[in-house]
């Protein structure tokens, strides 16, 4: 067990380091010149002072070779310093720390709502013997996956803020302002949870051990509760890390639609101003959230599936995106 935990920990650290490296490769080594991009943004199209170019190059370390640059950046990141924003000059870690609590609230609520709705749909569809109800319930997830999040947000805004005046349209003030963004963010996630879980439950129902349980004289409720749910939920548990990562990605759109401050809005601003240090910091933080969630899942997984420790199962965290 200890060896298993240590192995997972080491894996998590390695993935985090690699995520940093990938974001570095994308942001700093692609052909576009970061300093040119920065100055274009800052100067608003005026001619730029060559002295300022040199100064910026030095400040961000672009005068160094790629490898040296990478090592410098990595060293700084390890001490918790993610650099400074180009557009505002503020430290990136401070920006993220300020933005994170609002987004954590939103994402946490959305995750809870999505799990309740997704698990509810899947369980009810698995439980019911009425074909029409099952068909209706199973038609929902494909629908939820297909609707664009930004569009759902706008439709909800139109209905609940501009037509019925139930919830505020924008801002971070109070619980009421969280309702529509939470629903918007949760729909896609709930659909994925419902899809993966109902697929897992469907397969579990077909497993021979279900027949064994029925042959013992167990009723449907008991078979579902004691065997089908435990086995059928394993695939959902393993994709939870990816789902939480996607949730964070989803906040970019949702916070933009509802004009909320937070992680997603920070991303949107940083990309729009091509603020490279901020974008990299955000990517690394998002990867860290994914890695932490996956680590938690990995640590809980052996309790749900004893075969994991025996090495009978593959690694977790992959699969659907």
């Amino acid at each position: 067990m200890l060896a298993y935990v240590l192995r997972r920990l080491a894996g998590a650290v390695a993935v985090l380091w690699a995520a940093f490296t990938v974001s570095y490769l994308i942001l700093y080594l692609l052909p576009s010149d970061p300093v040119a991009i920065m100055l274009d943004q800052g100067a608003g199209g005026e001619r730029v002072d060559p002295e300022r170019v040199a100064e910026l190059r030095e400040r961000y370390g672009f005068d160094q070779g790629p490898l040296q640059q990478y090592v410098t950046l990595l060293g700084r990141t390890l001490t918790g310093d993610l650099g400074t924003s180009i557009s505002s000059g503020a430290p990136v870690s401070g920006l993220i720390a300020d933005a994170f609590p609002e987004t954590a609230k939103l994402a946490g609520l959305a995750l809870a709502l999505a799990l309740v709705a997704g698990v509810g749909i899947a369980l009810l569809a698995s439980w019911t013997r009425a074909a029409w109800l099952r068909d209706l319930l199973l038609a929902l997830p494909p629908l939820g996956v297909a609707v664009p999040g930004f569009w759902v947000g706008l439709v909800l805004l139109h209905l609940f803020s501009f037509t019925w005046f139930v919830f505020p349209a924008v801002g971070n003030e109070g619980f009421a302002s969280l309702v529509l963004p939470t629903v918007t963010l949760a729909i896609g996630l709930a659909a994925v949870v419902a899809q993966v879980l109902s697929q897992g439950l469907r397969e579990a129902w077909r497993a021979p051990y279900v027949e064994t349980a029925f042959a013992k004289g167990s009723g449907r409720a008991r078979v579902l509760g004691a065997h089908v749910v435990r086995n059928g939920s394993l695939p959902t548990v393993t994709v939870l890390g990816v789902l939480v990562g996607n949730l964070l990605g989803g906040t970019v759109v949702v916070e933009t639609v509802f004009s909320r401050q937070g992680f997603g809005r920070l991303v949107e601003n940083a990309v729009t101003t091509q603020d490279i240090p901020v974008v990299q910091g955000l990517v690394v933080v998002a990867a860290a959230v994914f890695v932490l969630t996956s680590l938690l899942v990995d640590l809980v997984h052996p309790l749900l599936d004893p075969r994991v420790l025996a090495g009978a199962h593959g690694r977790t965290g992959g699969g659907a995106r």
Partner: protein
Amino acid sequence: MTLTTRPGTGATTTGPVDPAPSGGPLRVRGLRVAYGDREVVHGVDLDVRPGEVVALVGESGSGKSTTAHALIGLLPDGGRVTAGEVTLGEGPTPLTGLLPDAWRRVRGVRVGFVPQDPGTALDPVVRVGEQVAEALVVHGTPRRAARERAVEILAEVGLDRPRERARQYPHQLSGGMRQRVLVGIAMACEPELVIADEPTSALDVTVQRRVLDLLADLTGRAGTAVLLITHDLAVAADRADRVVVLKDGVVVEEGPAARVLGAPEHPYTRELVAAVPGRNNVPSASAPDAGPEPGAPDDTAPSGAGAVAGTATGTAVARTDPGTDPGPGATPALLEVRGLVKEFRLDRRERLRAVDDVSFAVPRGSAFALVGESGSGKSTTARLVLGLERPDAGAVELDGAPVGADRATRRRTQLVHQDPYSSLDPRFTVAAVVEEPLRAHRVGDRAERRERVAQLLQQVHLSPDLARRRPAELSGGQRQRVAIARALALDPELLVLDEPTSALDVSVQARVLELLARLRAERGLTYLFISHDLGVVRQVADHVGVMSDGRLVETGPVGRVFDHPAHPYTAELIAAIPGARTAAQHPDRKDLT
């Protein structure tokens, strides 16, 4: 724990007895089952009296498993009982038409069920003891008492350290242990009837024997009625008082086991019985060293098991110890295997010696069989011979040259795989499959190859019309013939046959074995035959090597090894083969056909 502990069974039942009694715990009348609009069971009648074992036998698709599932109300989705009545015991309520709630009070309590595959029939994420206890809890036993009783049950089904086992998960138990747990679950509430659906077909033969002994012991002591579903006539012969033969959803014959299997009346039963490969307790049909040249192919009647056995085992080779004692008229060894060792890494520290110092020689034109249970190393040995794996030590020589050195020697050895469903590329046509070796070795031009493919298909008795079909459109037997044709395309000298018939129904198996025997005779092929089925081995091989835990524990002529095993493991293996009971009653099986 033998069958004789049970009253009213065993070899004492000879000759026809009364027709099925009118009463008894299980009474099935006119049972019809359909999937959607397709009826698969057409009016089956069945009776099982208390303390009686009835075997329901049939090939795949006969409806035997569907019948079993209908009897406990567990048909898969889309399946339903359309007509007929099932009653159990004195109770006037028929089982047919029970509501789910009422079924719950029947299953487990009055009818126990032993499923087919112990690998998947236990929930992988629930402790074993908990799964046994569940059978008691659902019928009202308090949880704590049920857990205690579960440990006792595990002890009763013969698990060592039952208290510890109860806390383990299924993947920590062997297949045989898991099947014992399933027997324990079925018997937990001491039901009136146990339905066992192919309970041991996934197990090795020695394990199979022990599990069937256990089932017989427990049900015998409790006077339980047993309905045993099986495709294996030998198991039915050994274990059942009465046999019901099912074909295409219709009962074609039923009666006392000894009568039905000893003197079958219906042509289909006769065909089935005839198709069962050679039996071990029959004094060897052909003395190993007395056989003439293999019989001409056409003198084997299509359904003559005895005759096939006679041709297949009669070859002019007689050596008790390969490599040292070339018999009269024997050619020098074509295949020579010396001191073969193969290890696999299990993890950082542990290594598994899959093949451990194995040596044998196969003379040209003979058939050498490697037998053993799963994990014995027989398949790995075959892969080493084929050059698919590299040995860690030892040598494989074909005609004195090391195997796999170059393409030219490699084409002299070909393989027929176990599973004809996976050994053919689903996207290839039959013609393309057979042509592939010719293309790869650039044999002839397109027209010549097409001609050769047609010849090969003809040789394996496949209609030329099949050449353009794809594997999915063929039956299992046809697919295996295609695989054989492909193996023959390059005119190999040695054919490695890895369980070539174990995925096939018994009547299909008989025809494929017949084809293999004829091809060997016609083409002077040498066979290395891998099998767990000693009956098949007896039929096709001249010499046999018995493998256990990677070691070759005994080799010799088939007749000598089977009739007078020298190694205790061989003796155990042979004793475990089902079919001893009828064979003992019918010393000469040739008169059956």
